[in-house]
């Protein structure tokens, strides 16, 4: 089965007004399997949007290849299976949300009753059916973002490429969107999105890709990362050896020590040792910060 996304040695270069060239993405390789949910992270200017644009065929890479379900990225057959939400888009200000969805639906190949019912269903799903007849220019930013999300879902695409997905949405909107995307994921849709909201990434993604200065610097499964970031500690009294388990020992009171472990396995061994020659006072497992990880990763790559 073809990969949902396959990028190999992707290099994207822009020409500035001065005539000089700037490399936005360099030798970037990654892949996304069908049904996967992958977050694409990186600081501003890292090359996320450029990569997504290359996936959509908006920019032509100067080297490497990009395929979507085995088809060349940007081609009509590849785009037929993609729903795309741009980072910032002003939908035609003088059209209504319903007309906007009808226009994009027609371009998507939807016709007649199918088009009408899908447009109305999406307006309902995104909670904007009450503004379906108002011109886009009168809608709030959040409403417009919902229009954008609705258009990306037209035609039930196999792959959703979402650039800055939660931009403009309030907390309620974010939660609704999360639920919507999870349902799409459960139906087998592949999700590939960029976001600065690490909480969204953590809640939705199977895997993350971290890009910095156009290069891939990390590729991790979210479940593994979460384990890795989680910190376990045990507070005990008595003389117990933690050799081979951790060096992170703190004497918080005379005869009372707190030991911190990177893995759950080390914690379990430590518990056995304390039970043999000491007394367990407390055991804590704390989730690590994805934000710290992200910052550390970027700083490490710099």
């Amino acid at each position: 089965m073809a990969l949902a996304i396959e990028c190999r040695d992707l290099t994207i270069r822009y020409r500035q007004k001065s005539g000089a060239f700037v490399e936005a993405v360099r030798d970037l390789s990654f892949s996304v399997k069908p049904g996967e949910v992958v977050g694409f992270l990186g600081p501003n200017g890292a090359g996320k949007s450029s990569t997504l644009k290359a996936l959509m065929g908006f920019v032509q890479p100067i080297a490497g290849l990009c395929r979507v379900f085995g088809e060349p990225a940007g081609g009509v057959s590849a785009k037929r299976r993609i729903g795309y939400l741009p980072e910032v888009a002003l939908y035609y200000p003088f059209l209504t949300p319903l007309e906007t969805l009808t226009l994009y639906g027609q371009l998507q190949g939807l016709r007649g009753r199918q088009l009408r019912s899908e447009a109305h269903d999406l307006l309902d799903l995104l909670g904007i059916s009450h503004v379906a007849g108002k011109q886009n220019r009168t809608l709030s930013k959040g409403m417009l973002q919902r229009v954008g999300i609705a258009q990306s879902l037209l035609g039930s695409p196999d792959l959703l490429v979402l650039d800055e997905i939660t931009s403009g949405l309030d907390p309620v909107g974010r939660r609704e969107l999360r639920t919507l995307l999870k349902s799409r994921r459960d139906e087998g849709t592949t999700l590939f999105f960029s976001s600065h909201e690490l909480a969204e990434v953590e809640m939705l993604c199977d895997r993350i890709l971290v890009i910095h200065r156009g290069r891939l610097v990390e590729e991790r499964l979210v479940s593994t990362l979460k384990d890795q970031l989680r910190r376990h500690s045990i507070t005990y009294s008595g003389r117990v050896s933690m050799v081979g388990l951790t060096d992170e020992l703190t004497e918080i009171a005379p005869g009372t020590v707190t030991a911190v472990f990177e893995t759950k396995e080390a914690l379990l061994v430590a518990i056995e040792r304390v039970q043999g020659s000491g007394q367990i006072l407390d055991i804590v497992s704390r989730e690590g910060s994805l934000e710290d990880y992200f910052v550390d990763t970027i700083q490490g790559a710099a």
Partner: protein
Amino acid sequence: MKLAVWGALARGVVLESIRRKDLWVVAILGFVIMLSAGALGFFGAQGLQVFVKDLAVTVLGLFSTIVAILTTCRLMPEEVKNRTLYPLLSRPIDRFDLLFGKLIGAVLVSWIAFLALAALTSIALLNFGVRFDLLMAQYVLGKMMGLVVVCAVSFTLSLFMTPSAAATLSVILAFGSTMIVRGLVMGYEQASPAIQPLFKFLNAILPQYGLFDLGGRTANIDWGPVPAWVLGALLAYMVTYSGAMLAIGWAKFRKQAI
């Protein structure tokens, strides 16, 4: 399939133009034409028909061309500026479809403006006892074909330069090309044989808007309709020139980073 895509894009352009009240200028002009015709009526209809018809074809030609240029020149730059291009191009259409659909939309807007103005002008002309004939129908047809070429040129220019630069150049071409061609015709015989091919080349590449304007015959008296072969030749020129313009625009746009 393609027709549905072009139709959807064109419909979007027309809807936007109508809602944006771009065509209000047509309504205002129509009102002005009626008022002017009423004012001229004080001199008596007799003897003023030619003048009024001349005024009518001049106003029609001028303002339908301006509407066509202004509508067309901003279409694609606004798509890029407002980033409405992204959701459009993420659809399973190729870039040529996008350009062609938008161009059709621009042509339709300019035709609507022209026909609305022509209808209002016709009412004014009726007051002067002007009778409608085959030549007038040919004038309308010729003008509509000419507007296609105006839109195609403006559209292509807008892919290469800013909207204001494209509009300026389009206006210069629309209102100056006939003058330039006449200059070439006058200068050809005086030019040295070495330079004459340059005159021929310039004549070939300049849009021949003047050919589509039957206003001179329509406004004056006793001119008969033009032969069918002329309309056929105009149609062929419109298709060829507009096609060439679209091809140049597509060559620029097909790989352009957006």
